[in-house]
């Protein structure tokens, strides 16, 4: 069983990313995934988080994730808002971060204690491929480096979830991000 936690700001497509990952893992790779989103008073720019649990067998656990194996953060400013993205992590937990800066990635690694950080500028890639700075699909591409899902499954899931031209653009964003992900 692998537990994931996605952190972002309202409007960055965190919940969609979780759903798309679920589709990729469940339908694309014959595993099982459940999403456990957290809803409050919704507004753009508010910190949002969601939990995903992935397993080879049907997932019984149906609560929020408190001890993530993988954390994905779509906005570096979240940590500035007193959100502890490292809450409950284990020594072998990894981080996927939306940034192009090795410095920031290193800072996250040192501050929170992730054993590995994968990073890519998902926002810039999204702007290039989709024309809007919504980094969710791009970051799913980067997520593939953790080994939880293959890039082909993510591309197909993105195509199915978004559909049409948006699907193609988002799938391209995922692939490009996957190709350009660096790690520490």
């Amino acid at each position, binding site marked *: 069983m692998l537990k994931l936690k996605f952190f972002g700001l309202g409007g960055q497509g965190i919940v969609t990313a979780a759903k798309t990952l679920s589709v990729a893992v469940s339908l694309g790779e014959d595993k099982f*995934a459940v999403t456990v989103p957290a809803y409050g008073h919704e507004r753009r720019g508010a910190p949002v988080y969601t939990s995903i649990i992935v397993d080879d067998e049907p997932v019984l656990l*149906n609560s929020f994730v408190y001890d993530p194996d993988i954390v994905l953060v779509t906005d570096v400013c979240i940590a500035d808002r007193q959100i502890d993205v490292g809450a409950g992590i284990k020594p072998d937990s990894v981080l996927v971060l939306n940034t192009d800066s090795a410095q920031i990635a290193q800072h996250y690694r040192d501050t929170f204690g992730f054993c590995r950080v994968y990073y890519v500028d998902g926002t810039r890639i999204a702007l290039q491929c989709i024309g809007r700075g919504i980094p969710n699909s791009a970051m799913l591409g980067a997520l593939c480096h953790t080994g939880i899902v293959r890039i082909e499954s993510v591309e197909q899931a993105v195509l199915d979830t978004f559909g049409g031209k948006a699907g193609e653009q988002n799938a391209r964003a995922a692939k490009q991000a996957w190709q350009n992900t660096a790690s520490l």
Partner: protein
Amino acid sequence: MAEYMMLDGNAAAVQGMAMSRVKVVAAYPITPQSSIAERLSDLVASGELQATYMRVESEHSALSATLGAQLAGVRAGTATSSVGLALMHEICNAASGMRVPIVMPVVNRALASPWSLWCDHQDSMAERDSGWLQLYCQNVQEIYDLTLMAYRLAEHERVLLPAMVCFDGFFLSHSMQKVAVPAQAEVDSFVGPYTPKNVWLDPTDPVFINDLITMEEFTEMKYQMKEGFASAADVFNEVSAEFAERFGRRYCAAEGYMTEDAEAVIVSLGSMSGTVRHVVREMRSRGEKVGALKVTCFRPFPQKEVARLLAGVGRVAVFDRSAGLGAAGGPLFLEVKDALDGKAFVKNYIGGLGGRDVGASTVERVFADLRAAREEDDRAPVWCDVKEHPMQIRQVLRFV
């Protein structure tokens, strides 16, 4: 052949209603049910669901319209949550008394006050005496499956009672999970077309349904409903046996998980039942003899099954996700305690109210408390996830 779809709880409920070919929908939106009303509306607009969608001004109207439509001879549908269900209360009792087998998804959310948007069983528990059958779902697959089964159960000529298919707000309604969805032809074959079996509105043969009933006949009509509930227990097993044969998944009114040689068992309703099983599996791998009991059919309550599954279990924790205020315990506890009739040490745990998560740590704490409890201890319900200083959480300044 079944195909897998990724659906959240609300989408699964819609999938079940649409594939059962409801012909009239009258739904009023309320968080966290809203996407049910919206999705049904989309399906009707696109023609994928051949039905009439009635826009109504409140939940009271929604259930009234659904009741009227079903009395006119079609399968009608609505869904609600929390205070929406409360607003339907009058009509809930009317529908069951008139023996109209409406199937209604209820997305469990706390009743105000305090005003909450989140998961709590208070809403459906407040309707436990309304004469409706009540089913509780552990995961999204169950939402789809139990919806199909509910039509067969409710519409059965020995039952003829409306049914609520209850599932946790947000934890299931908004949780995307993998669901095996059979082909439409298979669903048609299982659910079948709707044929009104009791009384219905026919302009060529008019009757007056719900006329004034005096003390000369009221008791007998309620007795008829009691017989319906008695039959429902057997019909549930018949329908679920057929469902298992056709679709490969078996449902029981109450289902044990590793209860055979368990020394301590937690009984629960809804999505937390999955979490309890997860914890039981982990604790068992450490050699601890624990088990889980999930109640799927709360009304009629499966007294015999619960007693049989818990026979020999020394300690039983009953977890209520509704407050059970002013009573000896929560509603599930009262039923289980009565079913066990003194044969086990039974303790009530109240928690997960108003959307508070019931995680693995809460479940572990309940097992620990249950095993450490002494026979002579106070038997009042344990509020197992209450914070420290609960009486002081809202300190405000005021002029005196």
